[in-house]
């Protein structure tokens, strides 16, 4: 073997390494990934999702890694998760099944008028849609960005995968990041829009809800949603299936699986495959930054929408609603309801709003799914 042949061989080996194919742009992505991993581990911001998303961003941004491509027509590991889990729209629906199995609709059934707060809190979704179009996004992209304010991760992922898959990473990241930051974003808006007297409004204790009502609720809701917004039935149908499983009390093993192991498994696949869509070439542009900026406004306007709806309803109601529960209309369950509780306690140490805020919180889930359904019907 000559010296030149050895050099050629070494050169060939070098070609197959990431070092040779290194692109400095990936350093920025490593920094972004590290920031999300830091937020998840140190700040405990949505760690279940931000950690796998952060790791997904990190691992996919190395040259030549066989993760997000196809070889001989077969998807590589993370591409397979992404393709079968997200492109086939399976993961968001399975997550909704688990969420349904965890949800107690009692507070919403006991006080159904809070459903309207959940609708009012979708204001930001539609306002952001307009802002996004002004910035030059397409209508489909604008719809997928707008839904971030609904604060519903699986719905955001579901809608974005359908309408603008190229924005999936940025949208999911913005949605989950801001959901984690609800305790920072909402309180100033809540204080700004309510008077001290309004914050002290006491709401009557919720009536007990019978088991029959709890079983009937998911069936009635599924039927109404299927009739009015059929395009969102994959999500809401699974959500209500999970809930009817829980409330029926006869399929304990299935309920436990749906809300535990199954949910955990799909959460790993969701996080890592969403993160894996964010490679430097695609992600480093003005669009993700803009989405992050607008997502914050979106959350803010949704909070405003919920509070103003509660205040508007108070004009007509004999028994007033504490407008602090309006902010819980964004569907970050149960974080935004907890924020309402904390703000209520700040105003009056004996005024507990948590159960009252759970009503609009759950209505927000249905409201954001309905808004997503409207967009799907419009553009898909």
């Amino acid at each position, binding site marked *: 073997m000559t010296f030149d042949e050895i050099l050629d061989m070494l050169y060939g080996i070098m070609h197959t390494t990431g070092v040779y194919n290194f692109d400095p742009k990936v350093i920025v992505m490593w920094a972004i990934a590290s920031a999300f991993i830091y937020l998840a581990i140190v700040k405990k911001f949505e760690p279940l999702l931000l950690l796998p998303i952060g790791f997904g961003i990190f691992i996919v941004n190395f040259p030549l890694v066989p993760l997000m491509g196809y070889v001989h027509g077969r998807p590589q590991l993370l591409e397979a998760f992404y393709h079968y889990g997200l492109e086939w729209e399976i993961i968001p629906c399975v997550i909704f099944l688990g969420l349904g199995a965890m949800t107690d609709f009692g507070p919403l059934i006991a006080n*159904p008028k809070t459903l*309207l707060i959940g609708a009012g809190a979708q204001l930001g979704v539609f306002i952001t849609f307009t802002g996004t179009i002004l910035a030059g996004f397409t209508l489909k992209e604008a719809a997928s960005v707008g839904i971030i304010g609904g604060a519903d991760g699986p719905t955001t992922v579901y809608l974005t995968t359908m309408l603008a898959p190229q924005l999936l990473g940025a949208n999911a990241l913005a949605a989950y990041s801001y959901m984690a930051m609800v305790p920072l974003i909402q309180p100033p808006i809540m204080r700004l829009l309510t008077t001290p007297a309004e914050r002290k409004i006491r709401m009557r204790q919720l009536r007990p809800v019978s088991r029959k009502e709890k079983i009937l609720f998911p069936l009635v809701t599924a039927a*109404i949603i299927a009739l009015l917004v059929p395009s969102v039935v994959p999500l809401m149908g699974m959500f209500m299936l999970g809930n009817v499983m829980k409330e029926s009390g006869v399929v304990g093993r299935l309920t436990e699986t749906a809300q535990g192991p199954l949910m955990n498994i799909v959460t790993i696949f969701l996080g890592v495959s969403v993160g894996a869509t964010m490679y430097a070439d695609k992600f480093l542009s003005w669009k993700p930054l803009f989405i992050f900026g607008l997502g914050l406004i979106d959350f803010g306007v949704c909070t405003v929408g919920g509070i103003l709806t509660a205040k508007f309803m108070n004009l007509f109601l004999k028994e007033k609603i504490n407008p602090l529960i309006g902010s819980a209309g964004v569907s970050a369950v149960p974080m935004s309801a907890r924020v309402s509780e904390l703000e209520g306690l700040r105003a009056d140490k004996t005024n507990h709003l948590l159960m009252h805020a759970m009503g609009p919180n759950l209505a927000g889930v249905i409201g954001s799914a309905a*808004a997503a359904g*409207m967009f799907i019907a419009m553009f898909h």
Partner: protein
Amino acid sequence: MKKLVILLTTLFLLLPATLMAEDFLGAPVMPGGKILQKTGSRLEISVPKTYDQVLAYYRNALKKFKDIRIRDWSESIHIEDDSNRPWHSITISKQAGNETQITIIKDNWTWIVGTLILRFVGVFVVLMILFVGMKCSGYIISRSVARLEDKKAAVKT
């Protein structure tokens, strides 16, 4: 020399086709039509072709356009652009005979805002109907539960 002649002939043949390819705000306009109305935001033409011929022309012309949606309405075909092109829609009327009317409309905020407001109201309507449904079912169930409890109480006494 032979090649040059072929090239020039091809260019000569293609030139009229290129010149005839008109557009309105980026939307293809079928050649040979008579303009009925033209403003900065709307073009209405009538072409001496059947509806099927016009539809086939537009299907072919828009083949490479992304985010195009074709809605089949009873009186017309409505081709809508969901991206951010300057035109919003092309409407081809469904009428018998050899004259077909085509209307091209500029992208407009009235449509966007209108549809958004409608959909925002739509979310309210969905939840309002759900609210009514819940109220009714709640009322029926609480009444039946109360009756059962009354019966039980009567049996005990």
